Each structure stands twice: as structure tokens, then as C-alpha cells.
């Protein structure tokens, strides 16, 4: 996480810097038709989110999240500055994995939760939500596995689904877009997302858009001041080099490269591109001003396949973050927030912090079952 928290509506830090904002203005900015993502949002959820913006920001501060004391920036098509960045929690690598500002959000919240006697179960994987009846009734708790054992955990007040988006679930995401086969990996989890997950295509290999390789030459390495050696590149199937373009084609071997790249095809492709450089015009894709040929040995191929970022859809919820079933009825005791919840196609921390806080509050205020 980058730790950038664009919450507004009149937060204390906005006021400190003389920014005049309101929940109404937040709502207007996030229902602006110019942002295509916002056109399909649930307006009730956007309204609730706007109303809870400032309170959520203050909640973060109350729980010891510290922000850089800098003038906020404009963000996300908004009409007033709202972007504040959390301070890195610690420069001590023993405490902080990578020193990114996201640690300044997560670590204080974790510390605060533990201080309030919240028990965090690591190495537990939720596998099932238990209802009174298999497909009806209130939610009683969850099943989880831990070190090959199954444990059932009863919910005193409710279960909050906050497990993140579904970009990592290849089968599920392909229901929405069948092109999103397994070679499209997930941001920040490149090396962790390599396993074949079910029958996704011919021979269990990718059949979507296919891998994309960036092909470049030694001149590009010099020009861009790259150092194409480990650890900058991964030679285990993600980066290749060769003396000639034809040899390079033969070297590209990767689990998602369903069939080898024919040497002649890659030679023709590079030759065609070099022709565009000579002519000063890319007549195939319209790349502006192609300047540099791919011609000087050595030649390189680098994995350049797009990754999936965040999830803008999820379980249907109401303004109390209660999950709604297919019959448009509340599932008692079940809540969802963050990227697990749908209805508000907004990227990042403002969505997850507000809905997470509301889900927790509403679940805590529910009658114990």
C-alpha cells in the first residue's frame, strides 16, 4: 500500500490548510458523470461513504495513524484537495517490511486493535461461512483451516468479509472477463501467483490474451542505463537474452507461453518495426515517432504482461455493509467491506477504510446471537 488516504468532507487536516469541504461536495465529486467508474455506483453507498469520510479520517488519527503534515493535493477528479499521505510507521526493518507509507496506516491500526484485545489469527484460511441453514438463515460463524486442521469459529455478533478483491481467483474473474487467464498476475504478488488453477485452457495452459514480451537490444540497455542482470531480472522463465533475434525466440520458455515463438515470426516482427523506425511512422499501431531500431546484439526478452490491480466489484451490500442475497434480502449477521464489497467502484484506501469502519461499527452494534 502506498498509504495515500484521500478522505475529505472537512477533516481536521483539511481545515488546518484552509480547505473548505463538505460531505455534500464529496458526494457530488464522486457521482460526477465525467468519471466513468462512478456512473455505475450505488448512490446510496456513495452517499453513506461521503457522509462517513471525515469521521473515518478522524478515526484513523484517534487510532494513532499519523499523516505527513503537508498541504493536501487534488486527487481523483475532486474539486478540492483531499489527498494526505500516512507517515511511514517505522524505519526499523524489524518492524516494517518495506518502509512504504502503507505501513503507517496498517501498523497503527493493528497495534490499536491488539490493545483493544482483538485476537488476530495468523495462518488461518477461512473456507466457509456457516449459516443456520445451508442457504438460508443468519450467519453463525465460519470454518477455517489451520495447519491442515479445521476449526469452526462462532460469531458473537456477526462475520465481516474483508478478505480483499477477487483478482487472484482466476476462475471467478473469468466469469466477468474470459480473457483474464492465469498469466495475468496480480500486483505485488508476481512470484506468488504462478500456479495453474484448474482447467483454464487447452492443456491447462493460458488461452487468454497470451503473454506479452518486451523485445529490446543492447542499444536500449545503454540508452536507458539498464542493468539486465539478476537481481534486476528473473532468469527463471521471465527474462531471456540471446545473440540473435532468432535465437531469442527459441529461448523464450515460460509456463504461460503455450507454444514456442517461431524464430521467423519474431524476426519479421522486429524487421517490420525497424522499418517503421526508418520511415518515421508506425503504420501498424501508430506509435508516435519510433526512433530506435532493435538491431544491436545482444537481444533481450522481458516478461511484460499486464497485471491485474484492484477489484471494483464484490458482494452486494447496503449502507450498513450488510450483505444482500440474490433475493435482495439481508443475510443476518454477514457484513462485507473493502474490495470484498461491491457497489462503489473507487480505488484504494478511501473505500476500504470507510467501509471497514462502518462494517465494524454496525456489526458491533448488532444484538449478540
Amino acid at each position, binding site marked *: *500500500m*502506498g498509504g495515500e488516504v484521500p478522505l475529505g468532507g472537512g477533516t481536521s487536516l483539511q481545515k488546518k490548510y484552509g480547505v473548505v469541504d463538505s460531505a455534500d461536495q464529496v458526494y457530488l465529486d464522486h457521482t460526477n458523470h465525467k468519471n466513468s467508474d462512478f456512473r455505475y455506483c450505488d448512490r446510496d453507498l456513495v452517499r453513506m461513504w461521503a457522509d462517513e469520510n471525515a469521521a473515518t479520517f478522524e478515526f484513523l488519527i484517534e487510532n494513532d495513524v499519523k499523516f505527513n503534515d503537508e498541504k493536501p493535493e487534488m486527487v*481523483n477528479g475532486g474539486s478540492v484537495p483531499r489527498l494526505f499521505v500516512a507517515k511511514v510507521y517505522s524505519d526499523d526493518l524489524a518492524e516494517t517490511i518495506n518502509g512504504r507509507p502503507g505501513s503507517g496506516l496498517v501498523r497503527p491500526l493493528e497495534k490499536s486493535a491488539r490493545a483493544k484485545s482483538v485476537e488476530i489469527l495468523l495462518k488461518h484460511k477461512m473456507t466457509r461461512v456457516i449459516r443456520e441453514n445451508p442457504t438460508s438463515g443468519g450467519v453463525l460463524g465460519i470454518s477455517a483451516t489451520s495447519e491442515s486442521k479445521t476449526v469452526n469459529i462462532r460469531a458473537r455478533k456477526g462475520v465481516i468479509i474483508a478478505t480483499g478483491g477477487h483478482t487472484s481467483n482466476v476462475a471467478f474473474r473469468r466469469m466477468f472477463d474470459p480473457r483474464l487467464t492465469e498469466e495475468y498476475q496480480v500486483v505485488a504478488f508476481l512470484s506468488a501467483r504462478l500456479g495453474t488453477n484448474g482447467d483454464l485452457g487447452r492443456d491447462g495452459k493460458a488461452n487468454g490474451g497470451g503473454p506479452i514480451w518486451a523485445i529490446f537490444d543492447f542499444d536500449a540497455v545503454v540508452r536507458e542505463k539498464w542493468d539486465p542482470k539478476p537481481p534486476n531480472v528473473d532468469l527463471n522463465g521471465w527474462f531471456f537474452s540471446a*545473440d*540473435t533475434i532468432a535465437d531469442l525466440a527459441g529461448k523464450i520458455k515460460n509456463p504461460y507461453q503455450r507454444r514456442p515463438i517461431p524464430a521467423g515470426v519474431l524476426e519479421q516482427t522486429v524487421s517490420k518495426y*525497424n522499418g517503421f523506425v526508418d520511415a*518515421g511512422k508506425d503504420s501498424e499501431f501508430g506509435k508516435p515517432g519510433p526512433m530506435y531500431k532493435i*538491431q544491436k*546484439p545482444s537481444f533481450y526478452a522481458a516478461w511484460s504482461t499486464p497485471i491485474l490491480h484492484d477489484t471494483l466489484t464484490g458482494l452486494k451490500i447496503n449502507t450498513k455493509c450488510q450483505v444482500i442475497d440474490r433475493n435482495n434480502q439481508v443475510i443476518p449477521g454477514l457484513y462485507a467491506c473493502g474490495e470484498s464489497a461491491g457497489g462503489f467502484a473507487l480505488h484504494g484506501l478511501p473505500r476500504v477504510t470507510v467501509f471497514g469502519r462502518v462494517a465494524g461499527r454496525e456489526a458491533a452494534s448488532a444484538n449478540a446471537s
Partner: protein
Amino acid sequence: MPPKDVEAGEHKTSIAVWDLVSPLVIGRTAKMKVGARCAAGCQLTDHAVEIHGAAGKTIARTGLGGTPWPGTSGLYWADIEFPAPAEAGTHTFSVTSEHGGAHSEFSFIVVRPPDHSLTIQVHDKTTKETIADVEVRLGVYRSITDARGLATVDVPKDSYALTVWKLGYELFSTEINVTGTTTIEVEIAVEPEPAQPYWM
């Protein structure tokens, strides 16, 4: 000589062609480098490579050198020269290697001899300072500005689309009519920061 225990079919050889300065000029000699690599790891010193014109006629021949191109595992190479075609336009020639029967094609553009030199001096629109490493393109001609912000191209008398660009600057483009040797001044503006930073 090939290493022992290598079957004949394993001598698959591939070719690279580089450092051909484009465009070529009618009536002048073109220079480039050509390299060949045998998959079996053969030393290709003195093995012949040939350039063939559009009709397949051999127009240049040379022997490969004694050491592989720096940074490669076994690309034996040589400088080679050949006469540029007598007709302007795009041409495709081929290169063959006697070892492994390798064949590869390369294309290039041939132009009329230049009449004039056009020098482009590039400045920052705000600071007025000269800018180095700016990409300058004039039709099929291209160059990069030096430390003084100067780039020179030799071109025939004609009209050209001039584009000037460097990473971090806005693309500058204009039409220019070259009627004599001259220097033109171009100002390019720093690309503004996005008004809405991406965040996560």
C-alpha cells in the same frame, strides 16, 4: 571446426545485422556489421557471409572475424560494405551464412543525395537553455542533439515534417521547407505534471 559429437542438423545458424545507418544515399557505399552464431557453438572465423540484392545477386561477401561480438556467447562478426541501390525507396536485401545455411533479411530506405545541411538548435521554452539528447526527426532522417543542443541532418531540397521530442518535454512538430543550408531554432516546453496524481 565444430565440436565433436555434434550432428549436422544441430548447426542451425542465425544472423544479426546492425549499425546500418539509415537512410542510405544513392551512389554511396553503405556500411554495417553482420554476425552469425551457430547453435552448436562452432567457431565461425573466416566463414563467409554474403549480402544479396533484391534479385538474389550477391553484392558483397566477407569472412567473419576471429572473436565474438562483446557480450555475446558466440556471435562471430565482421564489417561489411555494399553499394546502395540506385533507386530511392524502401529495399529489402538478404544475408546468408555458408555455415548452417542461415538466411536473414533486412530492410532500409534509400534517398537522393543531399543538397543542404539543416541544423536544429533546441532550447527549453522557459529557461531558454539548450537541451542535449533531444530526438530530432525530419521525415526519414533522424538525429540526436549534442551537448550544445545541436543536431544536423543532410537532406535533399524538399518539404519535411519536423518533430522534436525528449522524455519529459512536449512533442514539438511542424512542417518545414528546406531550400538551403540553414539553422533553425526550436523551443520545447516541459511536459506539465498531471493535475491529478495517481494514487494507491
